[in-house]
């Protein structure tokens, strides 16, 4: 048996035995170290007679590769065994709780305002705002509700001065006035915001939210008003069909005026919008009164259009099944957590209003 074969057989036997990393390294060094057995064989190649040299070199390379592979394999095996041994010791109880996190929430009124803005964005309305403190003129007189008009009794007003010139706005309608005074028609706006009335009981809060809508152009009629509200209600409640009823009513700043009811029923304690035989009042609207247009220097012969005012809190209550209006402003941690929305749930046109 040639010397090469002897070396091969001896080391294959060794490598098949139980070895640790040090022992493997020793074998490596014995074979491939500077004066290792294989390394020395390579040095010998030059001395071999030419006729046998080729074969010798080829045999040597084969054996070298074989042993090298075997060593690598063995190293892997031993290393893996060691890692596995370590892993066995590192077993933790993964059911222990994660590090605590806190979750913030968006108030349902804010979410509802965003939903409404998103809906109106689609049909070209932009958002306007106005101050919470208003003067008597913008809140009443300019809206065709002069002093001593009984319609003023419909609004229990908070005043800030004895002369009753400054007040907390009782509706978002003064934003109509501000917008129309500031710009030129056409107007196509919504104005969400805080509103105030000095009554307070189970169903009334001294502060609540409204969204005003105003669309003034050359030929905007009651059909457009109906279409707009029909679209709003359908989109908002995310239902395919709704039942809507316009009832004649009276607001000094619109004529003709209407209150709008939507059909609903209660199923298993939950309110279902769009079905059933019961009616629920949700908003007031009408064609902007020519007197109002005159007050803001818009020619009522050339321009006309509609306005509406909706209770935002009311809409939120209906959509999300909230019973008590007062709870909106009570800041109860449990309530905010329960009815609040994840800040990442931004109502958008492309993604839809809710998940």
């Amino acid at each position, binding site marked *: 048996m040639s010397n090469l074969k002897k070396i091969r057989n001896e080391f294959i036997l060794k490598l098949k035995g139980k070895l640790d990393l040090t022992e493997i390294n020793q074998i490596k060094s014995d074979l491939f170290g500077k004066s290792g057995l294989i390394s020395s064989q390579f040095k010998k190649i030059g001395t071999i007679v030419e006729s046998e040299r080729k074969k010798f070199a080829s045999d040597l390379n084969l054996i070298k590769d074989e042993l090298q592979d075997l060593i690598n394999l063995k190293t892997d095996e031993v290393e893996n065994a060691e890692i596995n041994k370590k892993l066995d010791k590192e077993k933790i109880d993964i059911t222990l709780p994660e590090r605590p996190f806190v979750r913030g929430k968006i108030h349902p009124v804010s979410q509802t305002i965003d939903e409404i803005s998103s809906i109106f964005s689609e*049909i070209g309305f932009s958002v306007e705002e106005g101050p919470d403190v208003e003067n008597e003129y913008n809140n009443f007189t300019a809206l065709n509700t002069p002093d001593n008009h009984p319609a003023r009794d*419909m609004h229990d007003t908070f005043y800030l001065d004895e002369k009753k010139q400054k007040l907390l706005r009782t509706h978002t309608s003064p934003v109509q006035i501000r917008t129309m005074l500031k710009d030129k028609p056409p107007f196509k706006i919504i104005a969400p915001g805080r509103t105030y009335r000095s009554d307070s009981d189970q169903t009334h809060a001294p502060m609540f939210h409204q969204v005003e809508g105003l669309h003034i152009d050359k030929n905007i009629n009651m059909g457009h008003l109906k279409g707009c509200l029909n679209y709003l209600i359908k989109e908002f409640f995310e239902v395919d069909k709704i039942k809507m009823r316009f009832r004649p009513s009276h607001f000094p700043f619109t004529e003709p005026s209407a209150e709008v009811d939507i059909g609903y029923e209660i199923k298993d304690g939950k309110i279902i919008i769009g079905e059933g035989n019961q009616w629920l009042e949700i908003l007031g609207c009408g064609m902007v009164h020519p007197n109002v247009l005159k007050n803001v220097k818009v020619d009522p012969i050339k321009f006309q259009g509609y306005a509406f005012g909706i209770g935002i809190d009311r809409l939120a209550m209906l959509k999300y099944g909230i019973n008590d209006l007062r709870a909106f402003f009570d800041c109860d941690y449990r309530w905010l957590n329960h009815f609040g929305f994840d800040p990442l749930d931004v109502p958008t046109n492309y993604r839809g209003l809710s998940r």
Partner: protein
Amino acid sequence: MKITFDWLQDHLKTNFKEKHLLEQLTNIGLEVESVGSLSADNETFKIAKIIKTEKHPNADRLKICDVDVGEKEFKKVVCGAANAREGLITIYAPPGSTIPKTKTKLVVAKIRGVTSYGMLCSESELNLSDESDGITELSNKFKKSIGKNFFSKSKSNLIDLSITPNRPDCLGFRGIARDLAASGFGKLLELKEKKIKSSTKQTLKVKINKEKNQGCTAFGSCLITNVKNTESPQWLKNKLISVGQKPISAIVDITNYVMLDINRPLHAYDADRIEKGIIVRNSNSGEKFSALDNKEYKLEKDMCVISDQKGVLGLGGIIGGTRSATELDTKNILLESAYFKPRSIRNTSKKLNLDTDAKFRFERGIDPSSIEVGLNKAGLLIQEICGGEISKIDIQKIETHKVQIVKFDTNLFEKISGFKISAKEMIKILGDLGFKCKKEKKYLRLTVPSWRPDISQEIDIVEELVRISGFDKIKIIAPIKERTKSTLTQTQKLFHFLQRAIASKGYLEAITWSFTNPNYNDYFKETNKEIKIINPISSELGVLRNSIFSNLIMYISKNLDRGFKDLSIFEIGPVFFGSSPGEQTTVVCGLSAGKKSRLSWIDKERNIDVFDVKRDVVQTLIEAGYNSDKFFIDDKTPNYYHPGKSGRIFLNKDNDQVAAYFGEIHPNILKKIDIKTDTLIGFEIFFENLKFSKKTLNDQKSKFTTSDFQKSERDFAFLVNKDVKAQDLINAISSVDQKLVSNIKVFDVYEGENIPDNQKSIAINLTIQSSEKTLEDSDLEKINKLIIETVVNKTGAKIRS
């Protein structure tokens, strides 16, 4: 306005049922607020006969009665009335019925140990009269009716209508009937108006003073002498009771009846108590007057009063006085039917804070042409029921009612409503509503009926036509999905961004009142002036908030009391610095209370601290697009923050507007509010002080560059005086060479052993990297030296290592 279908049918002939009535009323704008079950209740009251009485074993004044209510068995009823006796025919209310006066629902109950099945009723309990002494005594004529309903006549429900302020005419049955008839619900019955035929003159002189601001323009009256005021006949009582009014005496009942029937308020004076004629005049300042509500009013100047030689008899159109009130023994009465100006009525009633039914009607506008109709109707009824002689009608006028004419362009209807009806149809509707119509080419020349003070221009006519034709005729025009202007402005976008950015840091969004408790507000108002609400719902909500903290701290305290310990809440909304429109600014305000990692198995628990909240604020500002490299922070904060543990942020050093405050709430405030928490940290971001760039997100992205040359990290520890701020050190270092030095981090702050008393050590780690080449050791050494030199020069620091 409370109505019944029964009464309505005095004016309206219709084949429709009450169910349809309710629908139709709502459809034409006379909103049905509620439908009372008065008739259902009424049907429970039975005519009954007491068969036997015996003394209650446990109460001297109570009796146990066996009552025949027309059923097989007698009912046992415990009764306390003295007049409860065998054989008496009276009215029985079974368990389950509701007593009209007290609105209490009867139940089977034990009275002193004896079970009573229902109740025998007094007249007062049934709202029949004020007679509460004993149970109702019915005459023997009712013998055959035992077991039948007592209120057999009223079959219709009590319908409560919400009449809008523009429709005074619908404060009377006639007006409602007219609207219904116009809408096709039946036919308006013609009134057979009887007129007073008399040869005697009205002898009490009436004069309306012609003076500025005179609130009365016409005063009609007649005298009825030798009357015998009495209880009203049953039909009249029933009518009033059916709409929830209490019968009083024939004269009062008749005036009320006429008022309800045709919306014509009247007033009856005891003529013998009027001293030499009536003068309608403006009041003098300080004049006193005792009104029928048993209150004395001190009048201001220029209120419209009805007076005589002795003084004020009544406030015209609002309330009568006790001096000339009619009583049961009144012999001669003066009946008034006048027109008062809405403005005057409203002014007076507002000033005196006085609200009456008459006032409610006059301030909305009474039909000026109904003066005579009212006198005829009421005068003749009084004569019929109370006897006596009636005088001619006297009418004093200082102004005549102007007839309103509207020239109506029929095209306007479709232009506004979006649907079409023919001119013929328009004329029919308007005619039914009482308009006189004359067709002139494309116009209608309309004479507005005197009872419609709300109609003065074309749009009012459109409203009438739409209302009566029905809103359901309006066709839906779907909106066009097109946007020409962006929905939100930059400011509004920023508002929404901040709102959600803060919420994403674990804060719950709250919405609290814009007003607040003045005591709490005081803690946070600083130099702002207090803005009082003149008429708050309670003193605890008496001022507009100068800061959101006052409400948030109150509510966080409530939540802590509920047992929650770790809370973060915020609100974004207005705070006020003046009482004029626009004197408000938007603030994002938050509070965090409690601990981090409370009861955690893995992390050590600790109080929430200023640096937690600082992170929330700074991170939010960075997310909103502001460059934190430019932030400048100092420690000058309002007094409600802990003076040593609070700060304010400017977006850059040259900016004089505070972007945000953050810090611990001052311990004194916590003590005063008695808030139970380990720690309370707050922040305020002043929305309107944030300058927002007009750049789009696209523009904001600068060119993307990185360096792959070797970078090297260096640590420095500086010894500085305690008053030197970390920010000063960082600023000094970053001033060295911003191209080479980056990622400056404070990784340790140390005071104590081995450090002089007034000094501290700040350790800083930073990265040095060039974007042009791999730096040589000598380059690095140069920068190191430069950094140390700069810091030493600028802050007086010493290098430790």
